């Protein structure tokens, strides 16, 4: 079983990448589980054709943990991908991080975390211990940082690298950095910058996903690119990513950059004006 987690800045395209990755893996005959770990619970929306999933925490709140069965929270979407959404509190109240912990405990107790590949799609930054829990407790064995070439996105990716490096010091922690995925914004010298960032933190750029209108069109039709435009060049990029991730055994403990080094790196690869 391969357990993959995609972390990155909010809005960078983790859910789109996760859903297309899961769809590509599902299409290839693997059993796949995608777990959305974001209170806004839209990770699996494209896999479910826009059908909103009841979230784990919503049902726990309504019925209590004992009243929630696996079939209540796990739904099957495109290409047989099983989908779960953790859910969480409304913005500005409660503790979403604790919600992630409670969700994983329930999924574990119900035996849900079984598949050839599990894809965890985790909220933007490592904002507290709760969101680091998939890494800390050994669920997310291979972490991919999804980033663009924007400084704030790299900053978030670097922060997650810090969390991985810290957690990796613990003897029982199996979490490692598996690579960096560029979800391009179309900036000049963007791939060059993200590749340099990946190497600077002791990892590598495993995929470069170009900015393509097909992604927006697929989302408008509530489909993954794999399903909406299966013969498109963008779909081929996601399929190649899926195969690369399956084969990837190049795991590392990252060496996060300090603020000055990160900014210098960005400056050195800045577009010319």
């Amino acid at each position, binding site marked *: 079983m391969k357990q993959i987690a995609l972390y990155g800045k909010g809005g960078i395209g983790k859910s789109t990448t996760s859903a297309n990755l899961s769809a590509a893996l599902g299409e290839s005959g693997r059993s796949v589980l995608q777990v959305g770990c974001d209170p806004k619970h839209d990770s699996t929306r494209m896999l479910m054709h826009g059908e909103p999933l009841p979230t784990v*925490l919503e049902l*726990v*709140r309504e019925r209590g943990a004992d009243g929630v069965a696996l079939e209540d929270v796990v739904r099957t979407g495109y290409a047989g991908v099983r989908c779960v959404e953790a859910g*969480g*509190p*409304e913005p500005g*109240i*409660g*503790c*979403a991080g*604790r*919600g992630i912990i*409670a969700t994983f405990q329930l999924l574990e107790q119900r035996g849900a975390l079984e598949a050839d590949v599990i894809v965890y799609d985790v909220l933007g930054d490592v904002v507290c211990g709760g969101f680091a829990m998939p890494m800390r407790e050994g669920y997310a064995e291979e972490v991919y940082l999804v980033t663009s070439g924007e400084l704030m996105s790299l900053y978030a990716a670097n922060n997650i690298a810090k969390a991985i490096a810290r957690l990796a010091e613990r003897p029982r922690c199996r979490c490692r950095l598996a690579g960096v995925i560029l979800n391009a914004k179309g900036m000049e010298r963007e791939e060059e910058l993200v590749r340099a960032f990946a190497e600077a933190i002791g990892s590598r750029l495993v995929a470069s996903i170009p900015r393509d209108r097909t992604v927006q069109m697929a989302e408008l039709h509530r489909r993954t690119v794999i399903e909406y435009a299966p013969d498109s060049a963008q779909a081929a990029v996601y399929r190649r990513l899926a195969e690369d991730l399956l084969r990837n055994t190049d795991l590392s403990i990252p060496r996060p950059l300090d603020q000055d080094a990160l900014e210098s790196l960005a400056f050195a690869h800045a577009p010319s004006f």
Partner: protein
Amino acid sequence: MPSSPSPLLTPRRSDGCTLAGALSVAAAVSDGLTIVHGPAGCAHHHVSLLLTTLLDRPGARLPVLLTDDLGEEEVIFGGEKALARALDQAVDRNPGSIAVLSTCVAEAIGDDCEAVADGVDGVPVVVVPAGGFLGGGFLAGERAALQAYGALAARLPAPDRGEEPVIALVGEKNLEFEADTHAVELGRLLGRLDREVGLRFVRDAPTESLGLLPGADLLVLREPALAPVAERLPVRPGTPRVDGFPVGLSATLDFVRAAGAALGLDAGAACEAEAAHQEAVLARFAGLAGSRVRLPAEPGWVRELADALDLVVDPTGAPVPLPDPAPVGTAGLARLLARWRRAL
């Protein structure tokens, strides 16, 4: 947030939880109801401490306490609804006021207790942040609660105060075994000036009486460390203050003198009367003269007392106890001397 060294665990109450400190004040409002906004176990632990202390006071009123019993659901989704439900139940009991004491859990998840309390009509509500992890311990909770009740006092209608000036005791240590004894002694000393304690802020005080605070004529603080709290109480500018209950022979006379001056009275006769009383007390213990005593510490008031009794302070002398808290007023010294006599 500078890191601090691990505190040595001691049984000093002042090192205890912020919640316990806040509870010691809130539970002393005689018609009040206290809600501990947190897990039931956390509430129970601190309530147990309070009730155990109250068992030492025969006939003590048991405070009315509720908890909204926060669990994992509230931690994830926020505890404000649970607090609102508890406030509804509290209002149904028709208390004079309600205190909401937050806990570590509520503070960590950022519940806005003030906003929830603002939704209560008909019963005044005070909110005291009491998350122990925020630091400061028992004393911080005690002071935060005094501050919160001070703010409440400013919102209450002023009760009929009669002709007499209002003298307020501020910040009595409600978990002290001798808290009432100290208050009685303060009352006796003020009686030398034909004055009396008008408000105990906050001990066995009904909510309505707290409205006397803004118009108080003299504040008597339990200890000097309460000065920052007193400076923020809603009293008239220039309201006189005595910073601390008196400890020691001369300090007791100074107290009478200072209270008289603050109230615009000639305290000469009162001081003479109290000095004569002190002489009479010392005379009761004249048999101790010449005894060699070993003291665990030697603050100025102890040396003064030893000198007045012609005791010999000697590291090889007989050990005698010094109580914590220190004895208040002449009556406190008399009780201390009785203990010393037994020890010698």
